[in-house]
């Protein structure tokens, strides 16, 4: 943090999946990216370009076979609660209630029991799930599951947030509310965020910078600065904002078309 190096350094990372049957898939090819402390970076790219894979590598879930990733100058070796992830498919524990899912991370930190319970409750309230504390994931809608996953990760207060389309299952209204809450948390507590999304406007609104990835094998195509005043409610209508969204749309569309062509 202090020695001038960015908090997260991804250096020439490639990743190859080797399924037991079928041929190997090169998911990431020579990806380099740096993210500063307290920076909010959005990742945009066509489906299948390796966004989730990149987060898995950052999270320490997959082995880094080629290249290097350091966080605070230390190489990533294993998963840890310093890098909280919100999975694209939620990964809730189905045998635990909403409350117990959220408590699981808190139980692994030294925190008195009543404080844990209060903290869990405050995040349940934050994502609007009051009244569903004792429901099991199988009894929730997709959007409610996603909000539970969001609360679970936010609750243990990781200094780095890896978010894989965390609002993808939400309706427009809830999505807007959750964006506001996320920005709130990000502005209040020191957090670095890497945020995968398919929603260009969301990326431009939330992020300081947006990295656009190429179609598979994923590479970083360009990085665009998108620092806007997040507290300005009229920001969406300003010309600079709309132009930025258009510019990024163009970049993403080109890659999506390439990905589509390759299939045929």
């Amino acid at each position: 943090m202090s020695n001038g190096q960015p908090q997260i350094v991804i250096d020439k990372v490639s990743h190859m999946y080797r399924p037991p049957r079928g041929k190997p898939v090169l998911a990431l090819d020579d990806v380099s990216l740096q993210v500063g402390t307290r920076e909010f970076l959005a990742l945009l790219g066509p489906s299948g370009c390796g966004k989730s894979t990149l987060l898995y590598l950052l999270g320490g879930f997959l082995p880094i076979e080629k290249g290097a990733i350091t966080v605070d100058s230390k190489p990533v070796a294993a998963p840890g609660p310093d890098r909280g992830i919100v999975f694209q498919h939620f990964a809730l524990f189905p045998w635990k209630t909403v409350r117990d899912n959220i408590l699981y991370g808190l139980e692994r930190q030294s925190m008195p029991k009543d404080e844990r319970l209060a903290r869990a409750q405050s995040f349940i309230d934050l994502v609007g799930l009051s009244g569903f504390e004792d429901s099991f994931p199988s009894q929730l809608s997709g959007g409610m599951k996603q909000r539970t996953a969001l609360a679970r990760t936010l609750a243990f207060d990781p200094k780095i947030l890896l978010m894989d389309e965390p609002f993808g299952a939400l309706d427009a209204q809830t999505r807007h509310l959750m964006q506001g809450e996320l920005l709130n948390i990000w502005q209040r507590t020191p957090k670095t965020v890497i945020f995968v999304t398919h929603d260009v406007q969301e990326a431009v609104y939330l992020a300081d910078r947006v990295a656009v990835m190429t179609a598979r094998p994923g590479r970083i195509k360009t990085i665009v600065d998108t620092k806007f005043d997040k507290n300005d409610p009229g920001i969406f209508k300003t010309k600079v904002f709309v132009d930025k969204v258009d510019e990024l749309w163009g970049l993403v569309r080109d890659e999506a078309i390439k990905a589509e062509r390759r299939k045929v």
Partner: protein
Amino acid sequence: MARTDAVAEQETLALEAPGRSLVRRILWGAAHLISIAALVIAWEGLARSGTFTPFVLPSLSSVIERIWSDAQSGELAINTGLTVYRALVGFLISAVFGILIGLAMSRNVVANWFFDPVVSVGFPMPKIAFLPVVILWLGVYDVSKITMIVVDAIFPVIAATVIAIKGVERELIWSARNMGASDRELMWQIVLPAAMPQILTGLQVALPLSMIVAVVAEMLMGGYGLGGAMMTASRFADSRGVFAGIVEIAIVGYVLVKGMSLLRRRLLIWHQEANEPTTA
């Protein structure tokens, strides 16, 4: 047939007001006993029609009378109790060690290397072939009968546990790791509960198997117990006694299996299947 019933039931349940659906449920449960009732009536009718002598096919009512008198003499309680005791002890040992071996095989290369061939060879083998050896080593009392049960019932538990653990979603494990779970916590708090539905399926296979082996072992080794009592009755040409044994075994087996599926519903209250109406 069973499938269309399930669909029809779901529809009626959805259409019913909550108050009436309970009545419906009970009626539906009763309807499931129709096939059993038909069998019982056919048995009684056939026995009374005089087609067979009472020796070949005693009437159900006379068999029930016999069960009643056995119950009063205390014979029934001893035989049933012993058989159920052996079956349950064997089942519990199989459950605990089966799950532990399955866990060890999934976790440890050496354990897998050691047990995998044993399971592959042992599972399909008719374990009753070991009976003479077991009698030589352990005699004919409870220990040898329970050993026979464990040798049979442990395999489906091991197999179910290994397959269940293989199928646990990697993201569940990652998400626990992400929150700081240790190896030990991961095993007991995440992998085991996630694998529980399939492990329970293995246990549901092992339980009736335990009962079956208990009865067969009793038949072959003699002594008290439902199987032994049937063999004794057969030797004395006591056909009512033999048929009484069959009815008792059927009832005990039904109760055990039913109890197990209730336990499953209890344990898997969080599971999708608990939210849906069932036909059982």
